[in-house]
């Protein structure tokens, strides 16, 4: 029965533990020291960090003068960034020359904007349509009257006094809101089969995209007053808005066109066979699909617009960057070796926070919208 030839009596000796594939050491081996070249690069990278990080840390934090510091401290030989300067001039950087007792008005506009924008950006929150109408139609009107005043017993504050972050935000928000419908119309016009309309749209889009924003703003600031009937004065702020909106609408049109081209022909035909007219077809069938595709592109456009608002200094508006530059050049009481650098770094940080969060949001939307199309 039991003719099993061999039964092992003792245990197999334990094998040595396998090389670790998880944990810090394995990670370092894989990501830092995989090949000799990698090792050299890693060492060079570490050297670079050692060379760069401590001075930067000292400048930003270590030797920096805090918000409550004095200008004397900023003038010390080894002083770093002069945050006291930023802290003291903050009001100017945010509101420009906006009357100080009236600054609650921009504050309400900021708060209202955040209140309406945040639910609009979170996909799960309901009432998107009402929210969008509130944000895109009601909010600008309310904000305008609140900021400009002259009605309901509010003191009138001319746009020349607006400045700083306020102007940057207004121009970018208004620019994107106006250029979006304009861009859609241009994109539809470019796809149209009516030759006159098509040619006009192509000419407009290509001309605007070919020239730098700075020349468009020059045009808006110098030529717009010439184009208007004699005696009309065009507000500087309006000039900047017109320039920025025309510029962005051309880019927006190209983004939307990308979306339109991604819609299969069958969708157009299906719409037509349902007996829908052109506008109904566009509104109910084509645009909802096309725009969904290009949300990331629209956000990217918004990022460039936000950065480009720094050019409105051409028409004489004091946006955030221009406000910082003005103070850097004129605030003699804060003159020190690092004042200008600190000012620019502050502006850079503000721009960076806005743009970076927008780009992250765009990536988030891209991932969310991609799910249905991934192969």
């Amino acid at each position, binding site marked *: 029965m039991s003719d099993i030839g061999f039964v092992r009596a003792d245990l197999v000796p334990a094998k040595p533990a396998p090389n670790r594939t998880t944990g810090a050491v394995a990670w370092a081996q*894989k*990501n*830092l020291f*995989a090949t000799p070249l*990698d090792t050299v*690069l*890693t060492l060079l*990278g*570490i050297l*670079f*960090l050692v060379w760069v990080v401590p001075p930067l840390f000292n400048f930003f934090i270590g030797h920096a003068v805090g918000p409550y510091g004095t200008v004397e401290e900023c003038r010390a030989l080894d002083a770093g960034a002069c945050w006291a300067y930023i802290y003291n001039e903050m009001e100017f950087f945010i509101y420009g020359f906006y009357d100080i007792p009236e600054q609650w008005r921009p504050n309400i506009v900021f708060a209202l904007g955040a209140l309406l924008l945040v639910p609009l950006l979170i996909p799960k929150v309901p009432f998107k349509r009402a929210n969008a109408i509130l944000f895109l139609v009601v909010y600008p009107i309310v904000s305008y009257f609140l900021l400009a005043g002259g009605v309901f017993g509010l003191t009138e504050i001319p746009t020349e006094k607006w400045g700083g972050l306020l102007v940057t935000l207004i121009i970018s928000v208004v620019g994107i809101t106006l250029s979006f419908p304009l861009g859609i119309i241009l994109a539809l016009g470019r796809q149209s*089969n*009516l*030759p*006159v*309309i098509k040619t*006009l749209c192509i000419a407009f889009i*290509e*001309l605007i*995209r*070919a*020239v*730098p924003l*700075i*020349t468009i703003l*020059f*045009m808006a600031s*110098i*030529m717009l*007053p*010439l*184009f*208007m*009937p*004699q005696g009309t004065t065009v507000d500087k702020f309006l000039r900047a808005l017109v320039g920025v909106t025309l510029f962005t609408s051309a880019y927006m049109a190209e983004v939307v066109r990308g979306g339109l081209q991604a819609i299969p022909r069958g969708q157009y035909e299906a719409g037509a066979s349902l007996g829908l007219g052109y506008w109904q077809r566009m509104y109910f069938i084509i645009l909802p699909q096309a725009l969904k595709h290009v949300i990331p592109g629209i956000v990217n456009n918004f*990022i460039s617009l936000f*950065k*480009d608002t*720094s*050019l409105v*200094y051409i028409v004489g508006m004091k946006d955030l*960057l221009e406000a910082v*530059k003005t103070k*850097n050049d004129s605030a003699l009481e804060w003159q020190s*070796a690092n004042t*200008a*650098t600190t000012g*620019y*770094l502050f*502006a*850079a940080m503000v*721009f*960076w926070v806005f*743009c*970076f969060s927008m*780009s992250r949001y765009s990536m988030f939307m891209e991932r969310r919208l991609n799910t249905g199309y991934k192969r």
Partner: protein
Amino acid sequence: MTTLDTGPTTAPRPSFFNDPVVRGIVYQVLVAVLLVAFIVWIVGNTATNLAAQNKSTGFDFLWKTAGFDISFSLIPWTRASIYWEAFLVGITNTLLVAFVGIIAATILGFTIGIARLSSNFIVSSLATIYVETIRNIPLLLQLFFWYFAVLKAMPAVRDSIQLPLESFINQRGIFVPKPIPDPQFGFVWIGIALAIIGVIVLRTWAKRRLEATGKRFPVFLTSLAVLIAIPTIVWFASGASVEFEPPVLERFNFKGGLQLPPEFVALLFGLTIYTASFIAETVRGGIQAVSRGQTEAAMSLGLKEGDRLRLVIVPQAMRVIVPPLTSQYLNLTKNSSLGAAIGYPELVNVFSGTALNQTGRAIECIALTMLVYLTFSLLTSAIMNWYNARVSLVER
């Protein structure tokens, strides 16, 4: 008996007002009329406004003496030069900074784009930090930073910081030795041209031979050798020499050498660093767009590492990279107009700025400026269309 009419039917004609053809014509005529009316209105307004301001129009000012200084110019410029020459100075200065910037940004951008894909954690993180920081800060702000916070904060001329190779940096810019080739040097240029022609011939021949016989020829190494050897031989044979004239500190300023004004350096730095971050993203996207299967297919064909990259990966990646890369080049050229904000005398600064203010011919100056950028743009897209047609996939 009534029978169904099965004969050919014509589509029912819509009523006149619903006919798409008629509607299309009506809309187009309407748009055209509105546009013409708008243009007439604007032209009328402009004429009235100009007449009220006693301003004349026309391009005759181009042949008048300009009478202003331009701080930096490649072609000879004096106060007696005419506006037409100012226009040319603006274009050459724009092209100069765009050309140097494009080369530098390409090198930096490709390096960082490839670094972002590196498996080395430190290298890829550094590249990511670079891209995400630079991309999200306005170019104008970066220019201000380089110009006002870095270059203008350099020490005065007397306390210049000495760089290697007898170069100096101070408030007034960077001073480098100026190469002065002697007349014999012309032969070296001819040698270089010959070498380039030789390389092209060699490449064509090698490709033909490869296709005919399957035998490979080490084209790259041979080309390199030819490119170095011929000019060197010519150099020594002709006895040409290049002298370097170093900048020398005199009482108030440097004399001799080549001065790179701080405006130029700041603009170049800003444009290069900013555009490189976008190029890096383009390059990364292009390389990632080539699917892993392509690498595996190349491996299974038995291609070695270098051939795999050269023959399979890079050509496919380039097809994705080149169109956005060109538009980045165009962006860089357009962005060079921001040099106006820091006083670099490029086209917008010279022509839409100084010349416009002096002559008051706003429309003419801005139109000419826009025309130049429009030409750049049309040229680029023409080249792009040609390239796209050449490399586009031939699909069944």
